[in-house]
């Protein structure tokens, strides 16, 4: 009782403080319709952030309910309030008011799926033991009815001792009644006796409450059982999994490309328009090559992100993602990850940015972190132009076996090397730095559902806008910084230089050029000279930028790849007179690009998803160390083989 009194007092004082919003904590198990309810209550006005110190997403939305300002706190979906990991502990700490800067909720709203009431009530029982004013929202009442079940909300309310409202969230049924209730938690009834503390006692309690609530229990979900006979069939299910994954990959790889090219073209056109409008000088250079290029490098990711999340959330909401994870879990379990990591790693073949964002569907925060850290090792599409340039220039185009050429084999080898490195890195990270605390693996297979399109659009927009705000700003600023490094100091080249030579002179004089010279001793053991050094610095913007930078350094007026290949082959070291791009150097450079995290967009999105600079810094460091070591060994090995 004392707990209940204390809660009452806090509510009274809350009502006394003029204008203070009522804080409602929204709790529920995964698949219990919590997100749909959150969106129905708050509309598009959700604020998304992170809780301090953990990778758990924090979502709050404001609404006006019954003339009262209400903040709805969407707490992470969970099956239990007994935390067994730091990320789960955040919910318990938040409810106790122990999270700095986050006021605890004044009252709790728990969602439970009407069709799984016997299981959901185990969690409801835990929530009711907290002693905060609580109410229960029973969702998916329409599905219960479709399966022949009947719910008695009054009976359930009487058995629990708290108010109960049945809703069909996506159709808005029951929401008016719910809103009326949510505005006045001080008048909610409280349980006379809290549910049992131990799990076994609580299960008995849940069974008796469910028996009273369900006047007719639901029959078997026949549609799901029928679909699963095909989708989870050992052979058909595996083939279907492969087909879905290939289609998924094709969508983000191929479908996004026309849109990405269009964005590139539009940015190019805007740059051209700017140059024709403004007099040449620092301002127009900054606007066109710094700012506009920066904006372009942010929005160029939007097609991939929109497609990725449309497909991802569709598969998730329909119920297939859990099945896909079930099918592939064992293979991923071998390397210490779980089934859902497969989708994220596959997306990373297109680009690590959407790949890392796709890890959001991984429930275990540890597994999610490991997946984020190894995702950059998958061969993304930005590496292809670099591989194409080097392989095209230095690997002879000869047939090895039938139609299979040496160039293709080298390319395949680079892809395999990246995948193998990701597997090894994941296994090592799981056994050392990010050891799981023995978290059990469990996965619920929800019934198949047709997701409401509005919810889908909500989720996709949420992901895209989070990317634009959090990662976009970082990408934009780094692009501008790199522009500064490549453009300053600005001095006039000697008059006798041709246009191409002047461009090269500019690069060599720039801060980036000096950095290239400065790091030459460090990269000399890999066989790299200062020109490659500048390329590596510039490729931080995006890996393929090294191609344009090398073109500029080799004083090519255009970026025609054929002439760049020729220039690379013809380049000789002025001190020794021997070629710069020897086989060991080319091999070392290719291997360097397999490993190194030369991509600030990936770093920015890692920062966004892990809520700290620590993990992007770690990823950059370990991948750079790996790249250096592998590059050095490759250089030695190829030199030795060639001698």
């Amino acid at each position, binding site marked *: 009782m004392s707990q209940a009194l204390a809660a009452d007092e806090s509510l009274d004082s809350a009502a006394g403080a003029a204008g203070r919003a009522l804080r409602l904590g929204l709790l529920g198990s995964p698949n219990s319709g919590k997100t749909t309810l959150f969106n129905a209550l708050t509309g598009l006005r959700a604020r998304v952030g992170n809780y301090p110190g953990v990778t758990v997403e924090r979502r709050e939305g404001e609404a006006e309910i019954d003339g009262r300002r209400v903040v709805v706190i969407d707490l992470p979906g969970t099956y*239990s309030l007994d935390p067994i990991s730091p990320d789960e502990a955040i919910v318990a700490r938040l409810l106790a008011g122990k999270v700095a800067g986050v006021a605890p909720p004044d009252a709790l709203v728990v969602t439970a799926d009407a069709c799984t009431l016997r299981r959901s009530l185990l969690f409801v029982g*835990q929530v009711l033991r907290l002693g905060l004013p609580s109410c229960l929202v029973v969702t998916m009442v329409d599905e219960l009815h479709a399966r022949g079940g009947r719910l008695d909300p009054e009976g359930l309310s009487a058995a629990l001792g708290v108010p109960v409202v049945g809703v069909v969230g996506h159709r808005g049924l029951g929401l008016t009644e719910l809103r009326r209730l949510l505005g006045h938690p001080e008048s909610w009834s409280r349980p006379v006796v809290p549910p049992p503390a131990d799990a076994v006692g609580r299960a008995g309690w849940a069974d008796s409450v469910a028996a009273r609530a369900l006047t007719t229990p639901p*029959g078997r979900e026949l549609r799901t059982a029928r679909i699963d006979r095909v989708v989870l069939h050992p052979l058909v299910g595996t083939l279907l999994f492969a087909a879905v994954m290939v289609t998924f990959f094709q969508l983000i790889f191929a479908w996004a490309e026309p849109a990405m090219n269009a964005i590139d073209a539009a940015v190019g056109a805007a740059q051209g328009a700017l140059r024709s409008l403004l007099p040449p000088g620092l301002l127009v250079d900054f606007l066109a090559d710094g700012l506009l290029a920066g904006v372009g490098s942010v929005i160029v990711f939007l097609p991939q992100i929109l497609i990725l999340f449309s497909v991802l959330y569709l598969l998730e909401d329909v119920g297939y993602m859990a099945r896909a994870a079930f099918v592939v879990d064992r293979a991923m379990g071998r390397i210490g990850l779980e089934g859902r990591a497969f989708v994220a790693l596959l997306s990373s073949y297109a680009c690590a940015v959407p790949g890392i964002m796709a890890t959001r569907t991984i429930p275990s925060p540890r597994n999610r972190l490991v997946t984020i850290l190894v995702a950059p090792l998958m061969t993304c599409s930005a590496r292809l132009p670099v591989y194409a340039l080097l392989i095209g220039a230095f690997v002879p185009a000869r047939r090895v076996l039938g139609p299979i050429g040496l160039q293709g084999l080298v390319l395949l080898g680079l892809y395999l090397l990246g995948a193998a490195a990701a597997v090894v890195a994941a296994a090592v990270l799981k056994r050392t730095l990010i050891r799981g605390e023995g978290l059990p693996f469990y996965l619920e297979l929800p019934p198949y559902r047709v997701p409401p399109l509005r919810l889908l659009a909500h989720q996709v927009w949420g992901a895209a806008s989070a990317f634009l705000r959090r990662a976009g700003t970082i990408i934009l600023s780094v692009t501008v910084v790199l522009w500064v490094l490549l453009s300053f100091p600005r001095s006039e080249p000697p008059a006798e230089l041709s246009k191409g030579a002047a461009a090269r002179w500019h690069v060599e004089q720039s801060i980036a050029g000096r950095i290239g010279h400065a790091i030459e001793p460090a990269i000399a053991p890999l066989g790299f000279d200062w020109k490659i050094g500048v390329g590596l610095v510039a490729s931080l913007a995006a890996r393929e930028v090294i191609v344009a930078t090398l073109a500029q350094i080799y004083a090519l007026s255009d970026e025609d790849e054929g002439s760049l290949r020729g220039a690379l082959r013809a380049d000789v070291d002025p001190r020794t007179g021997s070629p710069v791009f020897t086989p060991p150097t080319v091999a070392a450079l290719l291997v360097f690009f397999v490993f190194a995290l030369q991509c600030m967009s990936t770093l920015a999105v890692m920062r966004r998803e892990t809520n700290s600079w620590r993990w992007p810094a770690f990823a950059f460091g370990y991948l750079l160390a790996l790249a250096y070591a592998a590059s050095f060994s490759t250089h030695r090995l190829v030199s030795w083989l060639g001698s």
Partner: protein
Amino acid sequence: MNLARLPVGGAAVIEAVADGSPVALRLLDLGFVPGTEVRALRRAPLGDPTLYELRGTQLCLRRSEAERIQVRPLPARETNG
């Protein structure tokens, strides 16, 4: 016997969940509570994990977790939906 050894299609009643480890506590919170009836629905194509039905939901567990749950198998005729 433990739950991992329950053949696909078979039903059993949970008797105990091993030790008081965090894993065991979580299994209890998921509904693997003594006295609850559980059915093995199917195994994943690669042999692990296994999909179980209990308390009106379908959950998969890996072998390592299922081994922590002691069950008493029910004869085939006793099982229903």
